[in-house]
């Protein structure tokens, strides 16, 4: 199912992100489009052969698709933009925690599974790529069999977002909180904002955890633990990415659920993501879901039980041979 990268015009990079038009964090649509414009322009300026794969997970009915808005917002863009609209019934069928209303990492797996790039970057829809990251992509400096991580810098909540450029992004006065370096061996911390590897490595690891569907928090770190356990090198790419802090982010809301972790919308963050790993089934990333073209560059994934893994498959819960070396928060 996974389309292999090849020399047949496949892009060097696929950027996978997910979202839906539900005003997550207050103004998700604006943040998504602003980031898309910025990243698109920067990649085009460096002539990086890249495509965007956007997964609209359980998109709310009656509201425009973000992928349609994106095409309008970045007209005539030289970069390919593909999107997959996933039926809301998948969320309903897959979740094992009704408080977790968005299985973000299964959505990303849908994009990873359908990526055409030689390398795949999974990131969030409101993340600005840093200058060093863009330069590394332009130089085609990435190696295979390696997971690249980038430090996330949070920009202050309420910062003027109308004219975000390098001057604003690279001004430390706009940063929210201290700059924590990524620590080996996992280089975890804000992992969901930047996981970059070659397509074969993602395929070998079978994407993010689809077995533990009780929480979305820690699933990103869990992927790193699995990668390390599988002998995949993890390195810091050496340049940050930027994220504008917003209402509802884990960083902003974790204090609210202190002592009531089980009620958190991201799940209980105490689950042992640093030790217990997974073996996704063959059809991870909704590989068996039917695909119906909706319009040019957009496909709908209607619901079908064939694409849904068993509710519980305990044999797919495994233990990592590597120690839980990094206790940092991962969202």
């Amino acid at each position, binding site marked *: 199912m996974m389309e292999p990268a090849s020399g047949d015009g496949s892009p060097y990079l696929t950027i996978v992100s997910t979202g839906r038009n539900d005003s997550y964090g207050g103004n998700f649509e604006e943040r998504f489009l602003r980031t898309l414009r910025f990243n698109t322009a920067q990649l085009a300026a460096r002539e990086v052969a890249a495509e965007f794969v956007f997964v609209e997970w359980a998109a709310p009915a009656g509201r425009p698709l973000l992928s349609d808005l994106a095409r309008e917002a970045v007209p005539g863009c030289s970069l390919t933009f593909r999107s997959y609209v996933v039926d809301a019934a998948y969320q309903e069928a897959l979740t*094992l925690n*009704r408080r977790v209303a968005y299985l973000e990492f299964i959505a990303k797996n849908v994009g990873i599974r359908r990526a055409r790039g030689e390398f795949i970057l999974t990131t969030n829809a409101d993340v600005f790529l840093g200058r060093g990251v863009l330069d590394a992509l332009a130089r085609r400096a990435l190696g295979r069999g390696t997971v690249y991580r980038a430090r996330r810098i949070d920009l202050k909540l309420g910062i003027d977002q109308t004219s975000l450029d390098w001057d604003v992004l690279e001004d430390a006065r706009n940063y929210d909180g201290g700059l924590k370096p990524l620590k080996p061996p996992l280089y975890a911390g804000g992992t969901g904002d930047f996981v970059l590897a070659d397509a074969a490595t993602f395929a070998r690891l079978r994407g993010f955890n689809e077995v533990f569907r*009780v929480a979305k928090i820690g699933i990103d770190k869990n992927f790193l633990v699995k990668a390390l356990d599988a002998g995949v090198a993890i390195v810091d790419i050496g340049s940050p990415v930027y994220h504008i802090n917003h209402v509802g982010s884990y960083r902003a809301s974790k204090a609210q659920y202190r002592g009531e972790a089980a009620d958190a919308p991201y799940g*209980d963050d105490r689950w042992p993501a640093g*030790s*217990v790993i997974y073996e996704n089934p063959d059809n991870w990333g909704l590989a068996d879901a039917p695909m119906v073209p909706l319009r040019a560059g957009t496909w709908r994934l209607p619901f079908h039980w064939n694409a849904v893994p068993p*509710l519980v498959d*305990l044999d797919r*819960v*495994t233990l990592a041979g590597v120690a839980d070396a990094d206790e940092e928060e991962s969202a």
Partner: protein
Amino acid sequence: MTDTMARLGSRVLRRLGLERGGRAADLHEALRKSEQRIVELKKLLEKSRAESEQWRAKLLASSAHEQAARKSDDEKYRARVEKLEARLAEQVAKLQERDAARAEKVGELRDKVATADRSVRAGRDHLMSIEVKLDLIEGAINVLDRRFRGLRSSPGGDSR
């Protein structure tokens, strides 16, 4: 005039190696005394020599005694030191033996601790794995419960 003549006569006699009769008696007496004094001095010298020999003999005898005593002491102490050294060596050997045994025990204990630590880690990991599985089962039960309730309350469902 007479005195002058007497002095002159004595001078002439002396030049000829002769003394007047009175003077010769005096000289003879002095000679006798001197000889007597020499004899006395010789006796004294003999006596001193004898005493000196006596002291020397005494000294030699004393030194030999001291040497013998010292030699005896030396031997006594040497024997004692040798005995102490032997005892010390024995103690050291015993301590070394005990130390080696203890080191062996410590090594065994360390291995046991490492094994126990690995077991604890493995146990903890398995416990976490079980917790994750329990979370999954609990989640699935909740999902099934919700679905079942949904079915029961749907228009076509059996709501007896």
